[in-house]
């Protein structure tokens, strides 16, 4: 059932090398090189901080709102860009697939890996902003932050499962990328990225909880913003989501795997 995952792990050296290649190729030639991957989140943070300080009234229930927003947007950005990249990865790597004996799982894994690297490179910015806010007394960092890596690990597994399905389906169906892009836009607002779950009226909450990503974003905010332990229910949701995404993604991928090199 998890054959694609185990094959990916066997090829981890290749996945790592191709991921590095993605990053190096993207930033090579730029004067700032890898600094660009930090410049982007920094800019985002600056815009949020400005807008919610001077333009919009920030939410009263989460302060500083810019920091809350920043954490959520970084993580959601990883999910959405990884899935969009996965939808295109086989088309972009067609020659490699047709001309080498590389295992096709490697490509969705690289799509996820490259975006994960971007997220990890942005985390120091988040940490610095948090320390800055802490110095001004607006947040009080605590041990719960140590739960963030585990949350992200489960998220990566879930996203990899989805990336497997999306990448394999995109080989056969031209509209998968558009479909994914639209679903992601919808999900952006239907997931507590911009707001905490508590801000949603009671009667809509069951719907929100039904979204598997709600648990992930809640857990990210809990551990990295509110610094309170992630709720047991959220752990269960996340573990369950990761397992289901991996199982379904692997099943779809296995079914279409043989035709990927022919159709890509």
């Amino acid at each position, binding site marked *: 059932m998890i054959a694609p995952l185990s094959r990916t792990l066997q090829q981890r050296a290749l996945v790592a090398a191709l991921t590095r*290649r993605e990053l190096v190729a993207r930033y090579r030639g730029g004067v700032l090189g890898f600094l660009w991957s930090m410049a982007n989140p920094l800019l985002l943070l600056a815009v949020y901080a400005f807008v919610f300080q001077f333009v919009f009234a920030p939410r009263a229930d989460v302060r500083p709102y810019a920091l809350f927003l920043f954490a959520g947007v970084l993580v959601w950005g990883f999910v959405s860009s990884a899935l969009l990249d996965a939808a295109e990865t086989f088309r972009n790597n067609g*020659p*490699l*697939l047709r001309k*080498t004996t590389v295992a096709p799982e490697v490509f969705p894994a690289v799509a996820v890996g490259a975006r994960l690297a971007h997220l990890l490179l942005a985390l120091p910015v988040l940490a610095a902003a948090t320390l800055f806010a802490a110095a001004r007394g607006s947040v009080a960092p605590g041990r719960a932050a140590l739960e963030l890596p585990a949350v992200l690990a489960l998220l990566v597994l879930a996203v990899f499962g989805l990336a497997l399905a999306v990448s394999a389906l995109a080989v056969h169906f*031209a509209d998968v990328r558009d479909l994914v892009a639209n679903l992601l836009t919808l999900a952006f607002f239907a997931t507590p990225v911009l707001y905490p779950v508590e801000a949603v009226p009671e009667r809509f909450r069951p719907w929100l909880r039904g979204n598997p990503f709600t648990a992930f974003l809640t857990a990210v905010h809990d551990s990295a913003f509110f610094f309170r332990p992630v709720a047991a229910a959220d752990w269960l949701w996340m573990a369950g989501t990761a397992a289901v995404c991996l199982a379904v993604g692997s099943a779809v991928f296995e079914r279409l795997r043989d035709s990927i090199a022919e159709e890509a």
Partner: protein
Amino acid sequence: MEAAIRVVGVSKLYRRYGRRRSVGSLKSALLSSWGSRALSPDAAVPALTEVSFEVAAGESVGVVGANGSGKSTLLKLLAGIVRPTSGRVDVLGRLAALLELGAGFHPEISGRENVEINGLLLGMSRREIAARFEEIVRFAGIEEFLDAPVKTYSSGMAVRLGFAIAAHSDPDVLLVDEVLAVGDEAFAHRCLEKFSEFERAGKTLVFVSHDLALVSARCRRAIWLDRGRIASDGPAAETVARYRESVAREEGDARLSAGLVASAGRIGSGRAVLEAVRLRNGEGRETRRLRSGEAASVEMAVRAAEPLSDFVFGVAIATVSGAPVLGVNTEADGLLPGELSGEARVVLEIPALDLAPGLYSLDAAVHARGGAPYDYRRDVLRFEVSAERACLGVWSPKRRWRGEGGVRWSR
């Protein structure tokens, strides 16, 4: 000896989807019950049909055949890139496939980084790559450009690097698809040396090539694929000769049916006309296929509208790419014209046609002594010369090698 490659009853159908649905939409697939309609092809094109063969460990096998005969599909099946529709493919040991040199190169990153990625793609571990890195770079001869992005490489450099990596990945079975056509002579030579090294080390080599001379020189065995089926499988020289014959036959048929023979490049006043030009083999049979060293004759049937006292007959042979091989005429060979009237036959006899294997083009002419043509027929016929042994150039004389002192051949 144990079989390194075993192919049993393998067929491969490529699915062809309707033009308008070449990439279907998920929406339509979901509307028409998942995976049944949209995923089912409109037609299946057979690329290989019931192919079976075995390759022993340590054997070098060439695969020849026309474009679209299934050669590349066969290599992809052996490499495991595509699955057979039916039948089984077993390959024993570590495999490296060189289906396109530098297939994994990324233009933006350096040669150094590309070596690592390409090596991993070929199944090497990072340690193995590090250990052979120097050797790979030296073989490719790109020391100075190692840290430049590959997009700045010439195509020759990229090809050399691609081959160097594959050759040093130390596979048990190496699959090579027509990659030596690129690159210069010196490099092709080094590749061939590497292949020999491979053979001596008991590795298995399967390679697809349009270079028939190379196949018969390099491989002891060859497989000829014709429209997805094995047409011949045996000693390379035999298989190649059969394949050549078939190609020449088809080409000859095509030329005849297209009426090209009669009108291809004909100039002259028409005072005398070459009505037919025939090539005959040593047995006097008309043919387009000769064996190197065999006797041959060129026969010209000529008709003179009025009696002529000034005439020269000439025959020229060139390779199909235009390099002159032979040009003779009756005058240069010491025959002075007397009279030509009515119908006549002029025959040029060659006791031994010592041509290297290949395709040749023949011109025949009758003209005045000053050179003014009565009838000059350029490329009036083409013929093919085959030989047991490969040789480059156009001349393949009877020959033998001798060695004295401390030299010895094992076979």
